[in-house]
């Protein structure tokens, strides 16, 4: 192979590397803060139905809903002592997440939106969406909740 070809090939590789990869996320508001989660972890976004609360309050655990006959627990991973869902409005949605196989749960959120983000817009789990800092959820945030559950 000629040297020029090698140089040319390398430059093509370099160019490819420099093109920022884009990933698809669901961006949403949760307790007035903004978050995003990889779309692969989101099962669906449904209308906020009546949540059946547990008989006794437990930090981080709100209640359950029936999603087409499947019972889904609704969780609260942020400052769980505050229970923000006392008044669910028309604007609320339930984000159904499956962080690993078999562990499916819902979060009561607002303004869910599909966004495509370039990797260069992600810095230390903070996404830049429209000039606003958005916390990226990786799934680890829910580990404690899972540990405290059955």
């Amino acid at each position, binding site marked *: 192979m000629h040297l020029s070809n090698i140089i040319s090939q390398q430059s093509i590789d370099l160019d490819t590397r420099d093109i920022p990869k884009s990933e698809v996320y669901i961006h949403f508001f949760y307790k007035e803060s903004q978050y995003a989660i990889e779309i692969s972890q989101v099962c669906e976004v449904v209308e906020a139905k*009546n949540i059946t609360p547990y008989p006794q309050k437990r930090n981080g655990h709100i209640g359950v809903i029936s999603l087409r006959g499947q019972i889904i*627990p609704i969780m609260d991973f942020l400052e769980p002592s505050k229970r923000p869902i006392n008044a669910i409005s028309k604007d609320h949605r339930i984000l159904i997440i499956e962080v690993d196989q078999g562990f499916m*749960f819902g979060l009561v959120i607002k303004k869910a939106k599909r966004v495509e983000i370039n990797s260069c817009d992600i810095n230390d789990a903070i996404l830049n969406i429209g000039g606003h800092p958005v916390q990226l959820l990786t799934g680890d945030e829910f580990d404690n909740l*899972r540990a*405290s*559950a*059955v």
Partner: protein
Amino acid sequence: MEMDTDEELLVAFIEEAKENIEGIYEAFEGFLESDNKSERLDAIYRGVHTLKGGSAIFKMNALKEEAHQLETRLTEYKGNLDLVDQQVLDDLRIEVDKLEDLLQSQIDGDRNQGEVESEQGAKGASANTTSPSDTDNKSGSTSQTERKPKNQEMIRVPVDRIQKNHDITTEIFLIRNQIAHLLEEESKSSKIRDEFFMQWEVLDNSLRQRIVELENIVLSMRMTPVKSLFTRMEKTVRTYCSSSSKKIDVNLAGSETEMDKKILDSLADPMIHLIRNAMDHGVEQPEDRVAVGKESTGNINLTAYIAGNEAVIEISDDGKGIDAKAILASAEKKGLDVSRVNSEQEMLQLIFAPGFSTAEQVSDVSGRGVGMDAVKTYIDKAGGKITIDTEIGSGTTFSLHLPIGLSVIPALILRVGDQLYGVPTHDIVATYTMTKKDISTNRDGFLVNLLGEFTPCVFLNDFFDNDDCASSHVSSSIFVCVANVNGRKLAFVADSIEANTELIVKPLPTGCPDFSYLNGVSILATGEPAFILSLDKLGIDIIESKKPNAQMEVLDHAS
């Protein structure tokens, strides 16, 4: 007949052994790249240990020996995971291949020998190692013709398919409930003619009955008596006694109790482990028993019964019991974290910790500490729980509490505050619609006068945190359910009864917090979920609750 049972057990063992080996191969896949090497190695170890135990029962000595050697080798890597490299994995795989080959040769041998062995007097499973060529000529056509009719009567259906059938049936049931609810609501507003509504009601009742029948049939497809499992355990004890100086009688009760096959199948391994432990560590040597005034022959009792929505299997022995303090000391010595262990039950539960064993010597029967860990894993997977009752010098009872399976249960729907709860009718001794005036207070507690008998009572809305929970305290009309809690009557006060119906109980999903008194969850006719309460467990929870309230004093005095 005896040979039929043995054959059944052998077939069950072979099926499980195949699954075990598959599981071991799966654990090898991507082992070096995985971040749970320790758990994977534990799983491989457990699989090999189970295989060893089973092959020992059926006197498959070559298989047992190979499994024992592999188990010993695996022990070297427990705690030394760094030593496991590709070469080690390859070697281990070869060892497992050998196990698989040995198992296959047993299967081939067994298939070819068929009933010939039974006619020759069933010389024991070790005879199965005879090569197939030796037996080809011996297997007569009689045995094949005897087997054929049995096969023609049965169809093997994958459990998953039956499960799917059941799921769809329950969904139809729920849809029917919702349709009924819709029509009833419409009829209240007189939008539907009475004549139409009556005709529809007749058809609907018929539909409901048929769905319940269908549900029961589907459920019964999966139900199997525990007899086969118990017989297998009996054989385990017989085999043990034939090579031990200990004498043990096995007493069976409730063999006809039926359980979901899937759950029952998953019980074989934990049961074997528990029985082995009872034989090895529970029941004493005959001379030791005599020295403490016991019969020289020990007893292992296997009991099965249904309690509410649970099937309970008890494995008890009349041996030396378990010393909880010795368990704690042993756990500390082994470096286990015991900082949160306080009560006796917590000390006893340490025997389920991975790697824990009080045995000083490793034996074929038990003693590597893998068994009890596996027991808990199996029972947890089956959605059950295990409790231990023990008395030093008298014996130990392990109780496995297992779900019977999904089912339609008759239940009352109660309102407490703004929430609805289901209560299985089998939990309820009596119900009363009363007024607040029928409740009296005594020493700050509540008592209800039931036919002249003052019974302690609890207001559910005091215990639950739901909104609007003060309602039954101010409402003149209340609904009272009486249940037996620890053998004593306890009255539970709800605001009202909403319906007397049938519910489909679904297990609580992963991610729900642990409430001991929740039996599951159901979907009401409105499509909303409602939790199913176990009044018995709720009563215990209230009694054990540290939350000081008026009812507690009454309950304490009552009990």
